[in-house]
């Protein structure tokens, strides 16, 4: 039995402790917003926040996430600046990688409210979007920063 805190809720999951957090989220908790793509931490589609930090959930054993606060795309409020920016800038194409991408951005902006171009590349270059939405991701990040600044909110 694993006990997890996801999006503010507590869950007891009957799954082996070495099962990846990704598959526990998807197949046990039915939180399908977190996506599987490579399974080896190369692409970032499975990114979630663990204690506010962006992590590849495919590489985290569920047992190691016990006691930590986990946030998935479903736990991000619909009016979150990053979600709004992603709609405003029409960043998404197929959309499969984007929940992971957005969680990576939230993780970045939580640590650094005012990232420069290099900070953004450093945070985002570990992710893959096969549709090639990188140009719009950059615009989305700028817009999210502006929204946060204007409204005095934090990621």
């Amino acid at each position, binding site marked *: 039995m694993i006990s997890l805190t996801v999006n503010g809720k507590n869950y007891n999951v009957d*799954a*082996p402790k070495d*099962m990846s957090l990704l*598959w526990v989220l998807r*197949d046990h908790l*039915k939180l*399908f*917003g*977190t*996506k*599987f*793509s*490579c*399974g*080896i931490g*190369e*692409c970032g*589609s499975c990114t979630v926040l663990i204690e506010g930090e962006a992590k590849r959930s495919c590489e985290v054993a569920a047992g190691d996430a016990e006691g930590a606060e986990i946030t*998935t*795309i*479903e736990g*991000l409020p*619909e009016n979150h600046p990053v*979600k709004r920016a*992603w*709609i405003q800038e*029409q960043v*998404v*194409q*197929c*959309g*499969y*990688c*984007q*929940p992971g991408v*957005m969680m990576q951005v939230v993780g970045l902006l939580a640590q650094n409210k005012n990232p420069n171009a290099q900070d*953004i*590349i450093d945070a*985002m*270059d*570990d*992710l*893959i*979007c*096969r*549709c*090639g*939405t*990188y*140009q*719009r*991701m*950059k615009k989305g990040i700028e817009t999210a920063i502006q929204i946060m600044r204007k409204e005095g909110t934090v990621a």
Partner: protein
Amino acid sequence: MKTSMTRRKFLKGSLAASGLTIVAYVTPLGTKLVSAAGEAGAAEGFKPSAFFQITPDNVIKVMVPNSEMGQGVRTALPMIIADELEADWDQLEILQAPAADEFKNPILRNQLTVASASVRGFYAPLRQAGAAGRAMLLEAAAKEWNVPVSQCQAEKGTIVNLKSGKKLTYGQLSLKAAKLPVPQAPTLKKESEFRYMGKSMPRVDIPEKVSGKAVFGSDIDLPDMHYAVLARPPAYGAKHLSFDEKAAMAVKGVKKVVPTPRGIAVVAETLHAAMKGKEAVNVKWDKGTHPQMDTASVEENFIKDLEKPGANVVTRGDVQKALGDAQKTYEATYYIPCVSHATMETQTATADVRADRCDVYVPTQGQTLNHMVATKVSGLPPEKVHIHTTFLGCGFGRRARPDQTIEAIIASKAVGKPVKVVYTREEDLQTDFFRSAMAHRIKAGLDNRNQLVVWDHKVSSSSLLRMNAGKEPKDGIDWYCLWGLWDTPKGPNKARMTYGFPNFSVNLVLSDLPIPVAPWRSVQNAVNAFATESFMDEMAHLAGKDPLSFRLESLTHDMRASRALKTVALNSNWGMPLPKGWGRGVAQHRSFGTTIAEVAEVSVDAKSGAIQVHRVDVAVDCGPVVNPDPLEAQIQGAVTMGVSTTLFEEVQFANGGVATANFDDYRLVRMSEAPEVHVHVVKSNEDIGGIGEPGIMPLAPAVANAVFNATGARVRRMPLTPERVLAAMKKA
């Protein structure tokens, strides 16, 4: 406006038969429009290809036959209907169509989202259907008020009585309008009257994708659903010698081990158990049919094939004589390796086969083909087989294949439960139907004015037709390999080389390698463009002319291509000085009815040979534009994907199978490598063209030409890795 793809609504989809329904039957003789009331009387043999329904509660239900994979089709097709119908966008309910004959694309005669054909296929019939609906609503209102139709005006979902100012909604008029005859040649709007088309409409699928609630194929979750994962043969043609069924079944939760055409499936109650079962099943395979085949031998094979005569596809003028008469001749050979679709969502399908019904939930581009195979494999009659299209986590042609559906149905039949097949990334790469590798050898000659007068082109490729459809190409000519060089005389894809060389020939050699291939965003257009547009640059250099004006000399008959080139030159600082180590390259290509010219601006690191693509300018002429912002997004994405294949991507082979395993050894472009993309739409009266694919075609040659411009190094082998660039720089 609502969309249908939330999980709750996913299973709903059919249109109740009340209100005004317009069906457009597209035939070779034109479009025939009928309303639902008259549908029974439709001439036999006509196939309805598009429809919408206005219900009395003032909702307009629009069926989208195509698959949404990020290209924006679920927004673009409803925009066309809503505009001609003069509907209020907010009253639309957009539904994903099931697999059915009436939703076949008029160009492809198949329900299939490929060949950049959705908007260009449905534009005309949907406009007619919408306009017919508007005319009928106007007439119904005129009758209601007992006034002439000229006194009525359609306005955003209502008919307005111009004298009295009274209004009736489309919903209020729908039942009366349904009883009227359908005008067969309704008056279409003028461009100046468009309410939606030509203005950017936010994509309807984006909010649910951003929320994380969008349902992709891999997110399907049915009661009591089981999971299947497959052990795959490590080499082409490999047959299993043995597998340990007992050990797999000993894993808690594993229910069945079942062979399928492309691997041994382990079916279990949970995905975790299925994966553990796959480890335990320990399949022993034989060496397959080509145990010696590796990356180097594949390349050698394609290059050697160029020595064979091949099939003559086209000959114009007298190529041999012209080569003999030419002032200068030149020859070059190019090689482009296999690349993978590498869709972000790995392949998946869920099947629920019961005694009297089969449901398949699949992120597919090909509903017709899925329905056919699902009917065959389930053994049920066609009307009992239902294909439900989910969102697609990338497509690029990979998802036109139905192999996942076959596997899911076999597994579901074996355990009597719904089963979801999940591919690991390794399986996805290992079992992909790749973009075919190709070798090109081109000989050409210049006359005494240094004009290009003869072009002799030999190409070797795997046969897409043979590998994809199991059909042997007639006379050795597989048109899928040729798009961008030549096309069938009446081909709908308008993918012939635009240059008008007086002496011209193309010969094709089809390889007999076992590597499965399939269309890959552009089919082989992008590969053919790399060879032709690199070679045009080499010839320009030989002629001592500017590469852009050299191209224009051979395009005097094609104003469209010339205009695109001039547009991109004007907007890209063509001819302006650049720092040392920087260069610009140009290329143009026509495919799927769209002409694109691109200029790439690159820098090359003199020490490492690494290329950075800084900026790409793109001139696009696709005729009318329905939704401008997704058009820009498609070009940005195609250019970025083009950078990926140009600089990084190559599938590796070893021991007769695929050696590439995952994204750590299959390099894809990342944010720091994505260029700035500037899109310049050419205002054009041409027929409508496609936009999903054409942006990728000129990118690779534009970059290779820019590298030549920057360094004098010509790289004729993709991808343009630092090692290849350095080696070419040494030769330059």
